[in-house]
């Protein structure tokens, strides 16, 4: 079983994207959110991406654990 589970790169990619967006959302100038109706979309969507990415990684991790003996 040397196959790479596709959920790992997907999860990894979105975890990083989410993390970067959250940090950027926290430090950025609030003025740039005028166009997005005053919502800090970087922060909020970053959170969504982070949760999605971590969920993918968790699913991939669960699949690698040996099944408990019956």
């Amino acid at each position, binding site marked *: 079983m040397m*196959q790479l589970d596709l959920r790992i*790169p*997907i999860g990894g*990619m979105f975890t990083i*994207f989410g993390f970067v*967006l959250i940090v950027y959302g926290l430090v950025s100038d609030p003025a740039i959110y005028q*166009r997005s*109706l005053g919502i800090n*979309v*970087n922060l909020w969507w970053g959170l969504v991406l982070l949760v999605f990415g971590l969920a993918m990684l968790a699913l991939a991790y669960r699949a690698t654990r040996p099944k408990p003996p019956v």
Partner: protein
Amino acid sequence: MLGIGWALRRFVRSSEDFFLSGRSIPAWIAGLAFISANLGAQEVIGMAASGAKYGIMTSHFYWVGAMPAMVFVGLFMMPFYYGSRARSVPEYLKLRFDEKTRGLNAITFAIMTVFSSGISMYALAKLLELVLGWNFHASIVVTGVIVLAYIFLGGLRSAIYNEVLQFFLIVLGFLPLVLLGLKDIGGWEGLTSKLTVVATNAGFEPGAWTHSWQYTGAPTSNPMGIEWFGLIMGLGFAMSFGYWCTDFLVVQRAMAAGSMTAARRTPLIAAWPKMFMPLLVILPGMLAIGLHATRGGFLPIGSDGHPNYNLAIPMLLAHYLPTGLLGLGLTALMASFMSGMAGNVTAFNTVWTYDIYQTYIRPGQTDRHYLRVGHGATVFGILASVVAAYAATRFNNINDILQLVFSFVNGPLFATFLLGMFWKRSTGHGAFCGLLTGTITAALHYGLTLPQGAGPGIHGGFLGTALHIYPSEMALNFWTAIFAWTGCFITTIVVSLLTRRTKTDEELRGLVYSLTPRIDEGHMPWYKRPVTLGIAVLVVSAILNVIFW
């Protein structure tokens, strides 16, 4: 943000052996790969453009077109694709009919890939022009050079793998855009009231942009300019079945599945996310045109005096997304354009070098020779794409030109497959003549009719006299497909009856319905059988049709 996307893509590409074995691919990946093969930037830009130009009737591409076609390919056609020894769609034609039918298909397929890649090139260049402020011509050149480098550096070895990643990138990159746009316009009610203005301005009933069936009694009463018959037969039957059943980029994804049942289930699973794609790709187009009509000049006006609908998504991106999230949206678009183009150029290269050059022009040369020819074909493919990209600039909706190409290629091909798979009497000569007649019929129809408001030339009518004027480009495409399908169907039957069968029953086993043993799925629980899944897909699409009636 762009940099991270790029770096990750490189990392991902190095693990290329993932998909080849095809053993333990979870069903959801095979399904996503199946729709990812066509959920490119082309679909995002093209369907949004259609949403703006034709309103919610664009959803017929999904709920009347793709859904029944995907159920059909899963239930009825996959057994032959998967069960035959064929590795590609042209190869199936060779096994079922003969060498010349495959050759003809290879040529039309090669032409189609060039158009496809050219349309992506146009859209990408337009995006660069808009976002980075580059000159359009310079953008085309830059795009061509980048794609060339991408292919020569071997960027496409794990296409399927990348496509699934891009699927998520596109969905998660565009969802915030849709949510923000909807919130801004005041939800579905706000959108409906704005689109009432759009419809009345264009001279239609107020609900013409928000009802998918109600105004299809006559072609003149809806923006797409098509009545229910042309819609169901042209878009639903000839074009969509043709596309989903015979386009080998798509079908090949299902062939990679682990077993016959898995292969049949692939399109049926793929149908679920596909069904809700209109939310992500058509809705933004409707938002853009609503904003355009009520807030003044949201979309730039093209040289033909109409808004350039292709820019619906790029304009929304620039309008709503701040630095940061904007990067994610642009990464999603560009990555998808690049790989879409590279995929098509690579397919062109393969078909030209192996299916045409090696088979008919210079057989028996060394591998090095074919490799050089392949490189030449790649360069040629990109140059031809540039020409196609300039052709695309003449259309204010890239979906119009894309479907035009499909009506020429997939419309007749579907008739050939239908007869090939379900009528064992159809012969190689019949299939070849039928395919040729179908394509010629399409050309004649296209040459003798025009969409409203267009002069003879690239939009049709190049044969001098226009015998009929259609209300829209899309209506012309649908009828081209109907004519092409009918021409191919009738000719194949007539010529088959006049010629002798060259393949025995034994040779056709596994390739024709009546000569292939039925698959026994009685041992599976009922809810896991492909038939159950297929029926469920059809029922839910019917419900969606009723909701947006």
